[in-house]
């Protein structure tokens, strides 16, 4: 299937001379949830803003659902919904007015029933006549989501949708995103919560200093870069690792009571059975064991540190 968004050789240098993006090429697959990760100032918002038509690119082309975002901007933009990072609302307007404005702006005929559904899904229905300034921050964010969903976009950009949002709302939002995905919407989100990417994303892209340094299926990424660790708690402290076990990548904990076995990097298959058998042969008694996996967070921090 053709990608729903196709970005090639995109670059952006702002008027002040700041280069925010360098030669980005990226395809987003139809119906996936794509998480864009990167530290502050990496260029995530810039990338999203260019696709949505808010920032003009310095070089490169972008197709959204087969439509050039510059030459064929109407067809491209009709398909795209955006929830920006910043909370920007017109304080004195009502929820109802602002959400209906959004639908109209994107060329859709009025549809009160649909707007009602969107507002109900976001628990905003009983605040529909309220001025936006009277809502809490989390509710304002939901208004922004309602605006983006009001025109039934096929592609939805969520720029840090859960920044400054409480746990419950975050859960709600994840559920909403899954629900949207199930109905065929492609979702591109940025986040600083790795937990979120780990939980939601099908694929992950990491951007740093304007460069896309990695794009990978989430499970493959975890497999490729994830490390596993087997920690063996010993019945009696060990002075040093016996020569018979030298073939294994073992380390002894500082208090000499635990043996740590690292494995699984780059998909290597471990020989845990053999290790346990050799431990018995060497007369070492294990009283407990546990395994740890590195999280996306560890992977991410490792990646960013590696780039100069």
């Amino acid at each position, binding site marked *: 299937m053709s990608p729903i968004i196709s970005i090639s050789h995109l670059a952006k240098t702002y008027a002040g001379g700041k280069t925010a993006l360098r030669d980005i090429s990226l395809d987003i697959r139809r119906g996936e949830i794509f998480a864009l990760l990167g530290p502050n100032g990496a260029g995530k918002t810039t990338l999203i803003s260019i696709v949505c038509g808010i920032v003009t690119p310095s070089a490169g082309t972008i197709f959204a659902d087969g439509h050039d975002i510059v030459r064929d901007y*109407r067809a491209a933009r009709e398909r795209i919904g955006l929830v920006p990072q910043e909370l920007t609302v017109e304080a*004195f307007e009502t929820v109802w007015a602002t959400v209906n404005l959004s639908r109209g702006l994107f060329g859709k005929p009025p549809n009160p029933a649909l707007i009602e559904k969107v507002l109900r899904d976001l628990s905003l229905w009983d605040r529909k006549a309220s001025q936006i300034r009277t809502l809490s921050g989390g509710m304002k964010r939901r208004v922004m989501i309602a605006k983006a969903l009001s025109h039934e976009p096929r592609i939805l950009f969520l720029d840090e949708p859960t920044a400054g949002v409480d746990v419950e709302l975050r859960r709600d939002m994840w559920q909403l995103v899954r629900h949207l995905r199930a109905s065929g919407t492609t979702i591109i989100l940025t986040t600083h919560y790795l937990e979120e990417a780990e939980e939601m994303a099908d694929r992950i892209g990491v951007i740093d200093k304007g460069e896309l340094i990695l794009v990978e299926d989430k499970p493959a990424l975890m497999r490729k870069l994830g490390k596993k660790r087997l920690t063996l708690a010993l019945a009696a402290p060990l002075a040093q690792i016996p020569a018979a076990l030298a073939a294994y990548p073992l380390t002894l904990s500082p208090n000499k009571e635990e043996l740590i076995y690292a494995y699984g990097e780059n998909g290597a298959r471990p020989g845990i059975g053999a290790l346990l058998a050799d431990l018995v042969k060497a007369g070492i008694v294990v009283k407990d064991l546990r395994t740890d996996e590195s999280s996306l967070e560890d992977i991410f921090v490792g990646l960013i540190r590696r780039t100069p």
Partner: protein
Amino acid sequence: MNFHAIRAIYIYEMARTRRTLLQSIVSPVLSTSLYFVVFGSAIGSRISHVGGVSYGAFIVPGLIMLGLLTQSISNASFGIFFPRFVGTIYEILSAPVSAVEIVTAYVGAAATKSVILGLITLATAAIFVRMPIIHPLWMLAFLVLTSITFSMFGFVIGIWANNFEKLQLIPLLVVTPLTFLGGSFYSIDMLPPLWRDITLFNPVVYLISGFRWSFYGISDVGVAISLGMTLVFLAACLALVIWIFRTGYRLKT
């Protein structure tokens, strides 16, 4: 054409107008009344007639124009400046709308409000003086054309301004003086020849002259010239707006 978008923006803007209509009406009604008291009675007692029209009636078209210009500019400039200021402009920039559609909607809404206020000023003036309107359709045409032209000008200011001071600057520094010097309260025939020639560079002269002609059939410059100049300003503002959107000037980074 994205008609849904034009309609949506127009409705949204008119809702804002409706919320503030009362305070918008108070000001022209009050200032019109004051002008009549001050100019009409004080000066009117010295100048009784201009070109066969009583002074009180003579100043009505100029007064309406004065209100129309300031209202059009402030409505339209605020209408587009505010979304830029609070950041909600992102949505318009990311929507499938063309420059022409955005301008049609915003300028349409601002001009609608100006026309309403112009008619309210006219009604207020009618309480103080009796005046004929010889060419009512032309009167409306000038009213609407001027509202559109200066709403478009206001729209440009709303995009150019990057703070509230600049938003006020042009109306205060340029438009009010031009209106006062544009023959609102006198016929330019009353001026010494040199000043009369200089005044002809003031675009507002043409607007007021044409508008006054639609009331009383008297004018400082030919009606065709007035109409032509009004259309020239309209075209100039339109060209400016289109250039702004083409280049993304002050809207996109």
